[in-house]
């Protein structure tokens, strides 16, 4: 069984609960054990950095230090947590002075960080550690005829982590094809959803969400799939506000990639947190479960 130090992040305890549920179900089916990091703290999202960069790195380092003790790879399902952990870890590896300062603070919590963990996103371990071949063997209910718009968003891709394609990645499409779905080719797949502007500049964020929804609809997508709880909330929970603001009538379901994986594995929708969304998922389920 593959084991990982799992960092759920704050969103997965509240608005992103269905992401957590479906990640656990899918992991179990794939023989992956996500061992939650003990007493983890918030990664800082995008809100610490305007106040103090060093504080932001230190708070993330506390979680990394706890993961290091286990010797397992650090896995985050949220793109913002992933980005913060990835770069904090990288800077700790390359900047001894920064590492010293951080360790001086961590010392009071009997922790030490040296940057030895590998920081991964959840989708990365499914695709690259489990592998598409293995995933395919678990697909008992291929998502035939389901047109899925893969929405990468920003921080899973950018800033560039290693040598990946940040302009036109394909791994999400490949995963969806493996599940039997039809990935939609649309140009907004890595365009920003507005992130925390949904709070701090509502008007701008709603417009950014509208552009994404319209692009997915223009390409006849039945559902948008996300890899991040922030993107999911903006596209799903705020869809009704977009409709009110712009007089549109979007009603496109938004699912986490783990929920679609679970459906294709034949897991009951309720166990994947499907049915609790603000936008009805009935139309999508009818196609996904071949009952249409």
């Amino acid at each position, binding site marked *: 069984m593959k084991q990982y130090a799992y960092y759920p992040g*704050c*969103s997965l*305890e*509240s*608005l992103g*609960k269905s992401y957590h549920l479906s990640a656990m179900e899918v992991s179990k089916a794939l023989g992956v054990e996500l061992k939650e990091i003990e*007493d*983890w*703290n*918030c990664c*800082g*999202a995008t*809100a*610490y*950095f*305007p*106040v*103090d*960069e*060093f*504080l932001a790195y230190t*708070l993330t380092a*506390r979680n990394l230090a706890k993961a290091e003790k286990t010797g397992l790879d650090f896995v985050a399902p949220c793109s913002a947590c992933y980005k913060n952990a990835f770069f904090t870890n990288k*800077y700790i590896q*390359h*900047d001894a002075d*920064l590492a010293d300062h951080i360790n*001086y*603070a*961590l010392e*009071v*919590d*009997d922790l030490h960080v040296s940057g030895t963990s590998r920081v991964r996103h959840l989708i990365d371990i499914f695709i690259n550690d489990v592998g598409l071949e293995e995933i395919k063997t678990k697909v008992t209910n291929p998502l035939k005829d389901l047109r899925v718009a893969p929405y990468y968003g*920003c*921080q899973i891709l*950018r*800033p*560039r982590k290693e040598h990946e394609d*940040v*302009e036109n990645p394909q791994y999400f499409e490949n995963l969806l094809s493996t599940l039997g779905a039809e990935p939609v080719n649309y140009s907004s797949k*890595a*365009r*920003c959803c*507005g992130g*925390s*502007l949904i*709070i*701090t*500049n*509502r*008007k*701008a964020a709603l417009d*950014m969400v509208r*552009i994404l929804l319209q692009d997915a609809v223009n390409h006849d997508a039945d559902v948008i799939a996300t890899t991040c709880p922030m993107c999911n909330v903006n596209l799903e*929970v705020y869809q*009704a*506000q977009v409709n*009110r603001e712009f007089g549109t009538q979007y009603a496109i379901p938004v699912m986490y990639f783990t929920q679609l994986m679970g459906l294709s594995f034949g897991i009951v929708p309720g166990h994947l947190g499907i049915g*609790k969304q*603000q936008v009805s998922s009935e139309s999508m389920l009818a196609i996904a479960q071949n009952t249409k």
Partner: protein
Amino acid sequence: MVDELAFNYEITNLMYASHGQPITNCLQCGTCSGTCPAVEFMDHTPRQIIGMIRADLKEEVLASNTYWTCASCFHCTVRCPADIDVADMMYALKRYSMWKGQFQAGLIGPDFSEAFVKMIVNSGRSFEPLLAATYLPRYSARDIVQEGLMATGLVLSGKMPLLPKKIKGLKKFQQMVRRIIPIGEQS
């Protein structure tokens, strides 16, 4: 007497030193502005802001909403031909304006960031309903009603918890934070 540091060096110094090039390397090509998904909501485009910093227009930069309108999508950063981490520069400008206590009136970003950090220092984790108090009063009556309806729907569907979670090792966590930034009294 020491000469005052030029504005563009102040900002460069506020960017994390181990990556990216200084903003003095900017070619003014406008790739950042053309890439930015939020540019139409900014007072000045990212290219203009860099030009303004280099022209030492400190007051004008501090009065601009540009960096508070950055969503941190890092598209400008990966495309900049001069290898400037433009999104990180936006963070540097946010920090600069917070430290100076100078920003455009009516912006929610500065208060939100401060409230967010306070919340984390107090509990270790983020909890959306607590944050609402910092921004809801700035919303219009119509927006507040919409937000209330949405929150009720989320609570009813089990998506939004009613009580915040605190981490167990909070005391040591707070001592750790105090080693970085002194907040309140040492306990």
